[in-house]
């Protein structure tokens, strides 16, 4: 049981990071479907830097930087040139997959030391619950703090209010003098940084290896997670842990004595994604959905 919870926490963290970043971008009204690509670029950059320097911290910085770079490309095309956001995001996802595979060719087969937990094993208390809670690496806590921070930012700060206003009605926001394109670009870059961190977590902690297309669709799950959570940062936390638990069922199904084919269990996270989207859409629970999500905004007129 303890092992299951620990693996769930580790599996949930990249989902949580990526979904939190995407949530901010979407609340500003920008639909960036390129999360998968940004995660892969972040993963390969982080792995390369950590392999050559030996520092996980530098790796995470490089991962976030790669994500920001990819998001900047998206912002230039989708916000600067007002291209279709869905098409630009899809292109970014494919682009990231290809470029990361190209860059990562020479790193396949190398291994690094995974990020150590904050507290060494010897210092942990004997209580199993406390062991799980205190025995994680820094990024697990960072991801949770980030999600709460985003919740605080969106619901309690003036700047977050402006960001929500822009996502709700960019034309009105422009008319009352909010900087629509500036705020949206910042939100997209933040989303890129988070996706890059999520990718870095995969290649530095989750499986301390680089493999082509190693995100295995987690970027898409993160996108669905935002919808599942109804664009609420705190609900994203629950969603991420729920989806992580679902994705682990393929490994733990056998342990629990379920006679379900492993192929079926392997598809549970994706099935859960689709089910979540269907339920959410049918229930009409789009209360927090930004009204202008995915619509390009031209400041003229």
């Amino acid at each position: 049981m303890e092992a299951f919870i620990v693996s769930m926490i580790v599996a949930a963290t990249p989902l949580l990071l990526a979904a939190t970043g995407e949530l901010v971008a979407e609340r500003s009204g920008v639909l960036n479907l390129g999360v998968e690509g940004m995660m892969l670029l972040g993963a390969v950059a982080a792995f390369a830097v950590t392999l050559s320097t030996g520092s996980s911290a530098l790796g995470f910085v490089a991962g976030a930087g790669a994500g920001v770079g990819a998001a900047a490309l998206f912002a230039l095309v989708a916000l600067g040139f007002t291209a279709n956001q869905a098409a630009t995001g899809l292109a970014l996802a494919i682009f990231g997959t290809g470029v990361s595979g190209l860059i990562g060719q020479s790193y396949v087969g190398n291994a690094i030391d995974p990020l150590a937990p904050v507290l060494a094993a010897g210092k942990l208390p004997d209580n199993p619950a406390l062991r799980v809670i205190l025995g994680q690496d820094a990024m697990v806590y960072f991801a949770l703090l980030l999600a709460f921070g985003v919740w605080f930012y969106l619901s309690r700060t003036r700047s977050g209010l402006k960001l929500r206003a822009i996502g709700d009605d960019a034309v009105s926001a422009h008319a009352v003098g909010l900087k629509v394109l500036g705020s949206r670009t910042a939100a997209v870059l933040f989303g890129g940084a988070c996706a890059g961190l999520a990718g870095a977590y995969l290649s530095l902690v989750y499986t301390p290896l680089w493999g082509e297309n190693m995100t295995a669709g987690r970027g898409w799950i993160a996108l669905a997670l935002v919808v599942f959570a109804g664009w609420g940062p705190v609900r994203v936390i629950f969603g991420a842990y729920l989806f992580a638990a679902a994705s682990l069922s393929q490994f733990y199904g056998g342990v629990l004595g379920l006679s379900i084919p492993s192929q079926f269990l392997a598809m549970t996270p994706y099935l859960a994604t689709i089910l979540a989207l269907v339920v959410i859409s049918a229930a009409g629970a789009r209360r927090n959905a930004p009204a202008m999500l995915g619509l390009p905004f031209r400041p003229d007129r």
Partner: protein
Amino acid sequence: MEIEKPHSAVSISYSLSPQERPASRFETFQIPPAFHAISARYAPTPIRPSRLLASLTGVGRFRPADSRRTTSIRPRPPRPPVRQAPPVMTSGPMPVVTAIPLAAAVSTPSVAVKADLQSGVSLSEPVSMKPDLPSVAKTPPPENTASAPLLSVRGVSKSFGPVRAVDAVSLDLRSGEKHALLGENGAGKSTLVKMIYGVLQPDSGTISLDGRALRIDSPSMARRQGIGMVFQHFSTFEALSVAENLAVVLPDRSLRDIRRDVKRIGGEYGLGIEPDRRLVDLSAGERQRVEIIRCLLQNPRLLIMDEPTSVLTPQEAEALFVVLNRLAGEGCAILYISHRLEDVRALCTSATVMRRGKVVATCDPREQTAASLAKMMIGSTVEHPRKQAAYIGKPLLEVSDLSVPSTNGMALDGITFAARKGEILGIAGVAGEGQSELFAALSGERILRRNDTIRVDGRAVGKFDSTRRRRAGMAFAPERRIGHSAIGDMRLSENFRLTHNATGIGRNGAQQIREDFDVRAEGRDPFASALSGGNLQKFVIGREIMRDPAVLIVEQPTWGVDAGAAATIHEALMALSAKGAAIVVISQDLDEIFAICDRVAVLHRGRLSEPQVTGTVTAEALGLLMGGVEPTALAEAI
């Protein structure tokens, strides 16, 4: 061809066709000295925004400004009292300003007014009494320079692609002036004020405030300069609450303070807006209140109002005028955009008339008739529609005991009425009293429990959806043009099919409507979003009339539409009723109801009053019904 009117205090000059006038010539009106003597008598009375809000509600609980409050009402730092002459004097009869402008005294009440009050000096003679006057000011000032313009627009132009939306426009606004900006839809009024408010940047020309040429590059900068604006198309955020909507533009006030202020004002003055309600749940009239509150909380010295009364009752409009008059008396300049000529004549002291992007006339609207103003606006006399005595026959639409529970809005309670063949039935009421719910129930967007609640020509249609009701002979034109009647990203031909597919896709009549209803737009088959409001509304009404319906339901058919388009729409509706259709007009515009309707009923808190013949009921009586006075009490009062 120039027409001079010697009797008016302000000279009027306008040409009947804009081509006869060279584009480079600026027309500047000048206020005669006599006016300044009058305006100076309105010494700035201190007033708090909350007081202004009181009069917005029409409750009439104004208290006189008490004398203890004379110190600092507008917490703006005092500006230097001496203004330099405006640096941009390109052309036109603008005299050099040498005296202390009234604007300076008025707009810094915390210093100047207080001093004047203490020394007992009348504000009408501040010039000679100021000790720190520069020597140049002692030369006798030219006659009409008692006040320099607060806002001065000089030769401003703006183009969108090939369209010259604003063409070398000049106008001046002095502190305390109530200036109307008149023009048809598409005349360039909105573009002009958007440049003043910093939403758009002019291609050429200058905008100066207090004589200093400014580049107003954003609305927040405009607000810092003391320019506030209430938009025609509300710049509110549907997903946010009332308090959050205010907070977006009030960076230095905490959300808690704003929420408390809104609540306090609501309780104290009956403004009736819950600060935590989301805007998506509010009616158009309530949203406008939010916009006005938002503006007034920022203590503007220039307030731009874009079509403010279009969703207000006569009483509410009068209360708004009280607010605007007080603001002007305080020294705030008002730039008032309206199609409602009577409003302009009642409120404004000067007017600039625009047509096709150019200034075609400046005048004093109080000395004009509505007809002469309309003539300046559209270049030809508006034919005011007159209700013809139509044959009124059997009921075509019967609604009996229509009750709909509330979902985020007003519940409908036992609505019963009939609209007869050849009749136009008006349904009056303030915004948010159940109009949109009634429209949804009549149009089939809300399907009813009982089939016989609504009958069309005897046939029960209550359980029918919109398409089946259309097949039963109904047609609908809702209030919101883009997003409800028409889809902005679709071409006119596609929009035409949206309601015609119910009765079979035949010949595409979009072109026919454009010809029959004079729908002006660029291109062979433009997108609906490219049309101005009036032209799109003509298209929508034309589209429904072309279906030759037995029953037509229209909501706010001329909301925010210019006089010419409104006349076209009214004529079309009357022609349809003369052909034997029953028409229900849900409108907040009493003028409209009196102009075209045979009978009128009032919707108040989801209940409908007994319909009365428009010839026998007065606007005042209807206004009282709209304000919630019981019909029996009303009868006793009359």
